[in-house]
C-alpha cells in the first residue's frame, strides 16, 4: 500500500465508524419519544439500547458496501489472470496443504488431482508440492486416503509431487495439523497455501499468489475471497448466487478499508512460512472452556499475530479462481455455524487483550457480533412490543411518533437491502455479467427469490445462533444425531429432529402475539412465518431436485455456470471417473491381506515417525476377533492401534490369510 493511502484509509475507518454510530444515535433519538412517554421503564431502556447497537451494526456493513460499490463503479474490472503481461516465473518453493479430517476421499482426491493438472498446465509444477495432511480418526478413511494416494504416486504424470502424512492424534485440530507441518517440513518451503478439503484453486491463481508474495517481502498472508461453488441444493445455489452478486462489492469495500490490516479465513490463502512458524504459534487461552483453553477459530488469531509481528495481511479481491463448496443442507449449514460461533465467542477474550492491533480487535469484535447479534435481535423483537405497548391506545395511528417508527423500520430495511441492490446494479450494468446471470429477467427474478428466501431463513438462523451462543456459554454443544441424508437432500424425520423446537416456538409465539394484540402479530410476522414453516422450508432448500429444477430454469445462475472454470470442469471429470467408492467397509480386510499395501503403509509410518506399539490387550482383542473371522467388527480404536504397529501388522497379515480359507483372500488381493 503506498504511504499516501494510509491517512485516507485511517480517515475512512474513523469516518465509517463515526457515521455508523451517528445513524444508531439518530435512530435512537427518533424512537425515544415514541417509546418513553413519562418515565423510562426497563423494557424501554433495553429496547433503546438494543436499537442503538443493532442499527449501528447494520449501518456499519451498509457503509462497507457503499465503499465497495463506489470502488467497483470507479474501477469495475477485475483483472483476469491470463491477461497479465508481467509474469515472472517463481523462484521460490511453495507447499500446498490439504488438511483432511475424515473427509470424503473421492471429493478430496478429485479436487487434488484437478489442482495438480491445473498447475501442470502452467508449466511451473515443480515449484509446488502438495501435502495431504490427514488427521482422520476413522481407520477405514485413513486406509482409503492411503490407497488413493498410492495410486497417485504410481502414476508418473510429471505433475507436482503429493506427499501424505497421517497423525495418530489430532492435537490442536486443524491449527495443530498446520503447525505440525511447519515444525517438520516448513523450513523447506518459502510459502504455504492451506486449503480446505473442499477448496479448489486455479493453477494460474496459485502462481499469481506466489508472485505477489515474492514481490512484497512484507506480505505475511494474502487471502483470496473464495466463491462458493459446485453444490446442487437450492440452499447452495442461493448461497453461491448471493456471494457472486454481492460478494465482490462487500469484499472490495472491506479490503480497501482494512488495507494491510486484513484478516485470514483459514484457507485459500498464501502464507509466508518462516514468519508464520516464528510468530504464529498458538498458545491456549487462559481459563477454562468455552471461552478459554484451546483456540477453536485459529485463523483470526493467526492474522492478529502476523500483524503483531509487523507483516501485512491483505485480502486480494482482484484475484479470481478461488473456490470452495458450501454446505448442501440447512442442518449442515447450521452445524458449520456452530463451530464458527464457538470459536468466535472465544475471541471476546482477545478483543481486550494486550498487544493486539486495533483492526484485529475490530475483526474479533465483528466475528463475535456476527453471532451475538442474533440473540440481541431476538431480544429486541420481543422487548420492543412491550416498549411500544399502549401507544395505540393512547394516540392511535394519528400519532406522528407511530409514523416515525414506521419510517425507522423502513430505514433499517433499506440499510439491509441496499447492498443487494448495489450488486444488482453492477451486474445489470455489465453485459457479460448480465448474460452470465441468465439475462435481466432471470437475474431480477433470482434476486427477488433469494431475498424472500433470506427473509424466511433469517429467523431460523437467528434461532440457531441464539441457541449456539447460549449453549457455547454453558460449555455445551448441540448435536443432531442420525443425519441420514437422502440423495434428494434432507429427510422429513431429520428435519423434524432439527427444527421441531423452532416450529413449536413459532406457533407459541404467534398464538401469544395474537392473544395480546393482532398488531403485535403483524410486527412479529416475519419471524413467526419462518419459524412455523421451518421444517418444510428446510427440506425444500436442502433439496437437490429443487436445485436442479431452478438450474434448468436458469434461476440462481451465476456466470461461472455458463462459462465453467477449468478447475471446476477438471474436478467434475475426476469425480465422475472415480472408480473407488469413498467408503468401502472391507477396506481394512483388503489392507490386511495385501502385503505390498502393508509394506507401503509401514514405510509411511516410518517416514513420518508415526510408529507406535499396540498394547497387549489390543492385540489379544484383535486376535480373538480374527480367530472368529470378525475382522470387520474390530473397533476403530483397535484398528488404529494395529495400523500404527508394523510388527503387529505383519503378524496379523498372516493370521488374516490363515483365517480366510475360502478363497476370499485372493479375491481381496485382486480388488
Amino acid at each position, binding site marked *: 500500500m503506498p504511504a499516501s493511502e494510509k491517512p485516507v484509509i485511517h480517515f475512512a475507518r474513523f469516518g465509517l465508524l463515526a457515521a455508523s454510530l451517528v445513524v444508531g444515535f439518530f435512530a435512537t433519538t427518533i424512537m*425515544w*419519544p415514541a417509546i*418513553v412517554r*413519562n418515565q423510562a421503564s426497563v423494557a424501554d*431502556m433495553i429496547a433503546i439500547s438494543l436499537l442503538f447497537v443493532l442499527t449501528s451494526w447494520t449501518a456499519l456493513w451498509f457503509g462497507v458496501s457503499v465503499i465497495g460499490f463506489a470502488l467497483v463503479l470507479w474501477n469495475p474490472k477485475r483483472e483476469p489472470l491470463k491477461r497479465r503481461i508481467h509474469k515472472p516465473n517463481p523462484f521460490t518453493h511453495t507447499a500446498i496443504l490439504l488438511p483432511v479430517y475424515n473427509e470424503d476421499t473421492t471429493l478430496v482426491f478429485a479436487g487434488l488431482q484437478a489442482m495438480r493438472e491445473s498447475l501442470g498446465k502452467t508449466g511451473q509444477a515443480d515449484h509446488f*508440492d502438495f501435502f495431504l495432511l490427514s488427521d482422520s480418526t476413522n481407520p477405514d478413511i485413513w486406509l482409503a486416503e492411503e490407497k488413493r494416494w*498410492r495410486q497417485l*504416486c*504410481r502414476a508418473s504424470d510429471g505433475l507436482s509431487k503429493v*506427499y*501424505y502424512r497421517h497423525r495418530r492424534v489430532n492435537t490442536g485440530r486443524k491449527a495443530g495439523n498446520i*503447525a505440525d507441518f511447519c*515444525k*517438520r*517440513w*516448513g*523450513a*523447506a518451503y518459502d510459502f504455504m497455501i492451506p486449503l480446505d478439503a473442499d477448496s479448489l484453486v486455479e493453477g494460474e491463481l496459485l502462481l499469481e499468489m506466489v508472485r505477489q508474495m515474492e514481490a512484497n517481502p512484507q506480505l505475511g498472508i494474502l487471502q483470496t475471497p473464495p466463491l462458493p461453488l459446485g453444490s446442487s441444493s437450492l440452499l447452495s445455489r442461493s448461497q453461491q448466487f448471493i456471494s457472486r452478486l454481492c460478494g465482490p462489492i462487500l469484499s472490495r469495500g472491506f479490503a480497501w478499508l482494512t488495507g494491510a490490516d486484513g484478516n485470514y479465513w483459514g484457507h485459500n490463502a498464501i502464507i509466508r512460512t518462516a514468519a508464520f*512458524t*516464528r510468530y504464529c*504459534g*498458538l*498458545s*491456549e*487461552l*487462559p*481459563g477454562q472452556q468455552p471461552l478459554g483453553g484451546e483456540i477453536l477459530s485459529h485463523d483470526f*488469531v493467526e492474522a492478529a*499475530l502476523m500483524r*503483531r509481528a509487523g507483516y501485512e495481511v491483505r485480502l486480494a479481491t482482484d484475484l479470481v479462481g478461488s473456490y470452495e463448496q458450501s454446505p448442501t443442507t440447512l442442518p449442515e449449514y447450521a452445524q458449520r455455524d456452530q463451530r464458527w460461533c464457538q470459536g468466535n465467542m472465544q475471541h471476546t477474550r*482477545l478483543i*481486550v*487483550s*494486550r*498487544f493486539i492491533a486495533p483492526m484485529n480487535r475490530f475483526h474479533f469484535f465483528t466475528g463475535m457480533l456476527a453471532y451475538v447479534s442474533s440473540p440481541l435481535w431476538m431480544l429486541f423483537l420481543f422487548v420492543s412490543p412491550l416498549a411500544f405497548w399502549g401507544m395505540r391506545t393512547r394516540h392511535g395511528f394519528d400519532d406522528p411518533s407511530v409514523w416515525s417508527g414506521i419510517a425507522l423500520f423502513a430505514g433499517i430495511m433499506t440499510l439491509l437491502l441496499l447492498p443487494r441492490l448495489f450488486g444488482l446494479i453492477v451486474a445489470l450494468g455489465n453485459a457479460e455479467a448480465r448474460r452470465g446471470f441468465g439475462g435481466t429477467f432471470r437475474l431480477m427474478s433470482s434476486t427477488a427469490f433469494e431475498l424472500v428466501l433470506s427473509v424466511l431463513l433469517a429467523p431460523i438462523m437467528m434461532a440457531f445462533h441464539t441457541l449456539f451462543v447460549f449453549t457455547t456459554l454453558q460449555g455445551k454443544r448441540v448435536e443432531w444425531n442420525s443425519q441420514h441424508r437422502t440423495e434428494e437432500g434432507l429427510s422429513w424425520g431429520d428435519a423434524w429432529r432439527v427444527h421441531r423446537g423452532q416450529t413449536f416456538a413459532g406457533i407459541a409465539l404467534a398464538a401469544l402475539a395474537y392473544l395480546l394484540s393482532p398488531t403485535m402479530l403483524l410486527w412479529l410476522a416475519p419471524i413467526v412465518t419462518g419459524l412455523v414453516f421451518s421444517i418444510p422450508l428446510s427440506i425444500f432448500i436442502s433439496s437437490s431436485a429443487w436445485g436442479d429444477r431452478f438450474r434448468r430454469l436458469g434461476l440462481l445462475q451465476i456466470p461461472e455456470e455458463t462459462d465453467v472454470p477449468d478447475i471446476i470442469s477438471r474436478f467434475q471429470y475426476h469425480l465422475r471417473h472415480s472408480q473407488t467408492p469413498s467408503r468401502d467397509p472391507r477396506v481394512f480386510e483388503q489392507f490386511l*491381506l495385501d*502385503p*505390498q499395501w*502393508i*509394506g*507401503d503403509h*509401514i*514405510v*509411511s509410518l*516410518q*517416514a*513420518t*515417525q508415526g*510408529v507406535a*506399539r499396540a498394547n497387549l490387550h489390543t492385540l489379544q482383542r484383535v486376535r480373538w476377533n480374527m480367530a472368529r473371522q470378525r475382522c470387520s467388527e474390530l473397533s476403530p480404536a483397535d484398528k488404529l492401534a494395529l495400523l500404527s504397529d*508394523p*510388527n503387529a501388522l*505383519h503378524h496379523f*497379515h*498372516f493370521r488374516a*490369510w*490363515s483365517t480366510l*480359507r475360502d478363497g476370499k*483372500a*485372493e479375491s481381496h488381493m485382486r480388488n
Partner: protein
Amino acid sequence: MDHVRDLKKHPAHIKNYQPIVLEIGKDSIRLSPVRDDRADNADLPVETLSLVADYVRANGVRDPNEIAAAANGCVRRAQQLCEHTPDGNRTVEQLALELAGEQLGVVSSQTLAGEPDESAVASYKVLNLSDVVPPIERTPMPEQPLGDLHPVVQPHTWPKAIFGATREVLSLVIPRFRLSSPD
C-alpha cells in the same frame, strides 16, 4: 532373508530343509525350483497347501510348478517346526504362510521372531521413504502469548467502569428527553 539365522533357530535334525530363493525379475517374481526330496506330498494337509499356494500366487508368482513346490516346501517345514518347537500362538497354516512370506520378502525374520524392527523399513513395498514426505527438518514454533488482559480492562475494574459510564450517560440524556416530551 537370513538363512543362517533361520538354520540356527531350528534344530539340526530337521530333515529336508531347503530354503526357497526369491528371484525378482523386471516384470515378474519367481521362486527357484524347490527340489523336494519327498515328492509325495500326500501327508501334507491339502487345505494348508492350497492356502499357501494361494498366498504365493497372490504375491505375483505365476508358474504352477514354482507355486506347488513353494507350498510343499513351506508347509513341510512348518510341520517340522511345529513338531519340534511347538508354539501355542501359531498354527501350521500360519507358520507356513510366514515362511512363504519370509521367502517372498514380505517380512523379515527379525519381525517374524517378534523383535522390534522399527529401524528397518518394510522390505516388500513400492514406495520409498522419500516418496512419503521430504526429510524432516525440525523448526521450533514458539507459542505466542495470548489473552493477556489489558491493564485497563482487568476483570475487577471493567464492569464497574462500564456501568459507571452508562449511568453517567443516561443521567445526562434522560432529563433532556423528558423535557422534550410532549407529555
